[in-house]
């Protein structure tokens, strides 16, 4: 094939400090057929400006860059990306085939040695990983056998199936199971010579070689400009505080059909601003591509500034299963309350009495989908009836349900009383970061008052909220629904079953599973137990169809049991796009998992038509 040299690197190539394009690409680069995707083949060049709100968000470039061993495509199928191929046998044996001639961004070859280094010298080094290799590599506490038959092949093998393995590799924040060995070895006690290591320690002001290694080795944090990378853009500024420049990786492995190496954009300029000012800056036309830090409520202002700012505002859909979900803590420390909250009729009644239509109108101009938490329509498991189950506004039915439970006593203010005589005051704790949650809860307060339930809203700091939930001190909490609203049959269902404390309805059950029974409580509700069984079955199963069935049942159980009272889903995420920026999809999903926000839409294919 004939590759064209990028003008950006031309001078370096001419000067001889960089090999010409043909030598930089893998022997078999990943060729992207843009036209086939309905996109336009572009030209190289340009600087894209975007904003983040914290300086540690430079890591977004790993997310947006989305060069993974395997990754999702726009239909949310997993495809090899960095890997030339991935062979899977029974979900047990995974053969990773690298692209021959693939190089790190510093030009050093990317080979199985990099995988070996990570597995043997990082993951299994007690200094660097005190608790051993990552959880997802364990199947029933068994570690894989990892072999490196040749330069371009790596094999992970377990005796049982590990269905999570591939999914994890395609995550927004993937476990990087490879490291630039040539670069890191000089920080590793095993390889480096002691004197130079000591000198290095002093220079970097850290106390142990392990700390030094850890610091240098942040593939995800992306804050070390020296660390070679495989991402489309690499960090080019050192010691920056508020302005980070990323330049294109000259050894990136993707090219378009015309032989132009991706990414098209030469430079990404990322500025750190306070979160309150993102909208103002976007409005003033100071960004080329921006979604982070923009909220639905900013849309009016953004729209207003379009003409002057030279941008347009796309409205993507949010990929979480529910924009706002209320979790009643089934592990709440108070017996009386816990029993009540475990009564599905109570949860249904609360859900039924919420006027979602009004909330939708007030918050999202009626553009979101009203309904309980369930998977999004893009998922194969979506059923419209699951969305509306126990979600239509029906206070009478709700009242009837509550009466049926036996909460018939009321105090003078019309609030129902618990069997033990306490008034039904439901404290809902929130992370206090989102105004829309507060506004929505305002309406819920009124709705619930009509069925004799007094709701008290309590904003907390995010970490504090989490800690309170995990320890069972929180009665109920508001959070997003499942992060992943688009499960496929192969998506591990851990987040939907009582195996994770992060699902605020069952923190203790989750802990129990996560700590292997050391903390928390075993699930003791039939539905929860059923979910556990389903998860186990999913893990054992290898057939796509079987897994699909299992998933469907999980989704249905959730819809029926209302473990999380979802209010709305599919809310719009404003995306500000410069008018000259080509290939940014108009309709898309804004999701962290799966999708890595912009990542699955492949920003390396965006270009400026100027």
């Amino acid at each position, binding site marked *: 094939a004939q590759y064209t040299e990028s003008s950006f690197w031309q001078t370096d190539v001419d000067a001889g400090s960089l090999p010409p394009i043909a030598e930089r690409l893998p022997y078999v680069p990943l060729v992207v057929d843009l036209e086939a995707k309905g996109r336009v083949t572009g030209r190289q060049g340009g600087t894209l400006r975007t904003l983040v709100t914290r300086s540690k968000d430079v890591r977004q470039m790993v997310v947006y860059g989305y060069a993974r061993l395997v990754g999702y495509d726009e239909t949310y199928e997993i495809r090899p990306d960095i890997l030339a191929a991935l062979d899977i046998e029974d979900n047990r044996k995974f053969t990773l085939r690298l692209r021959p001639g693939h190089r790190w961004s510093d030009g050093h070859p990317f080979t199985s040695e990099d995988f070996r280094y990570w597995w043997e010298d990082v993951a299994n080094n007690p200094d660097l990983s005190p608790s051993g290799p990552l959880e997802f590599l364990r199947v029933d506490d068994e570690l894989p056998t990892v072999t490196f038959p040749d330069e371009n092949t790596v094999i992970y093998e377990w005796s049982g199936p590990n269905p999570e393995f591939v999914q994890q590799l395609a995550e927004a924040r993937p476990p990087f199971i490879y490291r630039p060995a040539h670069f890191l070895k000089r920080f590793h006690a095993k390889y480096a010579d002691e004197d130079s290591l000591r000198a290095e320690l002093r220079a970097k002001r850290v106390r142990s070689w392990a700390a030094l290694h850890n610091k240098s080795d942040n593939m995800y944090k992306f804050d070390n400009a020296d660390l070679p990378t495989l991402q489309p853009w690499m960090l080019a500024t050192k010691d920056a505080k508020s302005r980070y420049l990323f330049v294109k990786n000259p050894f990136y492995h993707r090219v378009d059909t015309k032989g132009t190496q991706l990414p098209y954009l030469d430079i990404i300029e990322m500025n750190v601003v306070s979160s309150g000012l993102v909208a103002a800056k976007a409005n003033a036309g100071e960004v080329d591509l921006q979604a982070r830090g923009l909220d639905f*409520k900013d849309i009016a202002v953004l729209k*207003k500034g379009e003409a002057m700012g030279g941008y347009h505002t796309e409205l993507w859909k949010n990929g979480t299963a529910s924009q706002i979900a209320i979790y009643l803590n089934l592990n709440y420390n108070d017996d009386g309350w816990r029993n009540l909250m475990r009564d599905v009729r109570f949860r249904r009644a609360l859900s039924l009495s919420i006027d979602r239509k009004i909330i939708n109108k007030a918050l999202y101009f009626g553009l979101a989908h009203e309904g309980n938490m369930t998977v999004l329509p893009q998922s194969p498991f979506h059923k419209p009836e699951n969305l509306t189950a126990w979600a239509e506004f029906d206070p009478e039915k709700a009242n009837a349900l509550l009466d049926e439970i036996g909460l018939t006593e009321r105090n003078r203010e019309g609030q129902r009383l618990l069997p033990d005589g306490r008034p039904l005051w439901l404290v809902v704790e929130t992370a206090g970061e989102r105004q829309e949650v507060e*506004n929505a809860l*305002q*309406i819920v307060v009124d709705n619930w008052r009509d069925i004799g339930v007094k709701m008290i809203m309590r*904003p907390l700091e995010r970490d504090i909220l989490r800690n309170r939930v995990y320890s069972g001190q929180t*009665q109920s909490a508001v959070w997003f629904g499942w992060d992943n609203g688009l499960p496929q049959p192969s998506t591990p269902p851990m987040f939907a079953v009582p195996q994770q404390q992060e699902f605020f309805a069952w923190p203790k059950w989750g802990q129990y599973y996560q700590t292997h029974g050391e903390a928390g409580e075993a699930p003791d509700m039939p539905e929860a137990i059923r979910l556990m069984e389903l998860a186990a079955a999913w893990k054992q199963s290898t057939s796509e169809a079987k897994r699909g069935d299992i998933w469907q049942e999980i989704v249905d159980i959730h819809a029926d049991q209302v473990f999380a009272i979802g209010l709305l889903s599919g809310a719009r995420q404003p995306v500000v796009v410069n008018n000259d920026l080509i290939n940014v999809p108009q309709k898309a999903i804004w999701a962290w998992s799966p999708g890595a926000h912009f990542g699955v839409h492949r920003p390396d294919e965006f270009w400026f038509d100027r």
Partner: protein
Amino acid sequence: MSTLPDGRYVDDRPYERDLGEEARNADLDVSNTRLVWRRFREHKLGLVSALFLLFSYLMLPFAGFISPYTANERAPDHLYGAPQGIHLFHEGSLIGPYVYPITAEVNLETFSWEYIRDYDNPAKLEFFCEASYYKLAGFIKTNRHLFCAPEGATVFLLGADRLGRDVFSRILYGAQLSLTVGLVGITVSFFIGIILGSIAGYFGGFLDWIINRVIEILRSLPELPLWLALSAAVPSHWSPVAVFFIISIILGILDWPGLARAVRSKFLSLREEEFVRAAEMMGAKPSRVIGKHLLPNFLSHLIASATLSIPAMILGETALSFLGLGLRAPAVSWGVMLNDAQNLASIEIYPWTAIPMLPIVIIVLAFNFFGDGLRDALDPNRS
């Protein structure tokens, strides 16, 4: 008058030989308060401010009556409703106070609400009418309002907010909290600050040393993490007002060192004044010296400081809500309202949501001029 031949001048009015009788008459029995009041009355701006404040406070129990809506009453069809003027004349004829009904529509081009006024159907306001229930003065449940929206229309004098709540009514309800609870903090802080500052300043020496260390430590203590810790510790079922109350007290408790240092340093210098010595030599106890001699000489500063803390206290919650500790719904205060307005859309598209700034400024100015009038009345040099 006469000039003697030797160039002398001699007064020729009759001369009586009594000593020092003054011609001026003053009524002796007037109490100090009365005198201060008499002088205060002369400060017109101060007087007006005082009356305004008095009116504002007297109005608080009747906020529900004056406002056409209750604080959290939503008009779901009038989200971000624009302010409605009250008109008297329709097509040239007087038909009494009326409004034009408004319908709000979403404009999906601009993603904002648009208001269509129906100029053909003026809706007359109703007076002493029945609308939603509220508690007059906190305990009498009633549904009488001074005025309410006509059937089928709304009356948003200052517009409505994101959830369709009447800004005007909320300002009135918000005053109930903003004008009262915040002052508790000031009181606490002044109380502690003045007492400890006086003790340190007047006695000096060891007491001063101790109090100063306490001040230093308190001042060095970071407030931010304290708030963070506190927000986790407050029992969940407490009502927002109770939380706010506690917080303003804590704010007060943390706030006193500044004042205490000011009082202390001033007293360190004032206590060397001769009149203080004189009082001591008469046998005056420290409490008396402080209360009667030192404090009055520092009153101007105290009055100014108090006035200045008022906006800080009213707005303190807005800062705290960054930390998840602010006053929150369903409680209404001006700070809460402003907090809702802290975004670009409120400034650019729905500016009326930021209106609560005005009452704050007005109240604070009123306090300022009131304080100034008071200062003036107490100033001996102006008699």
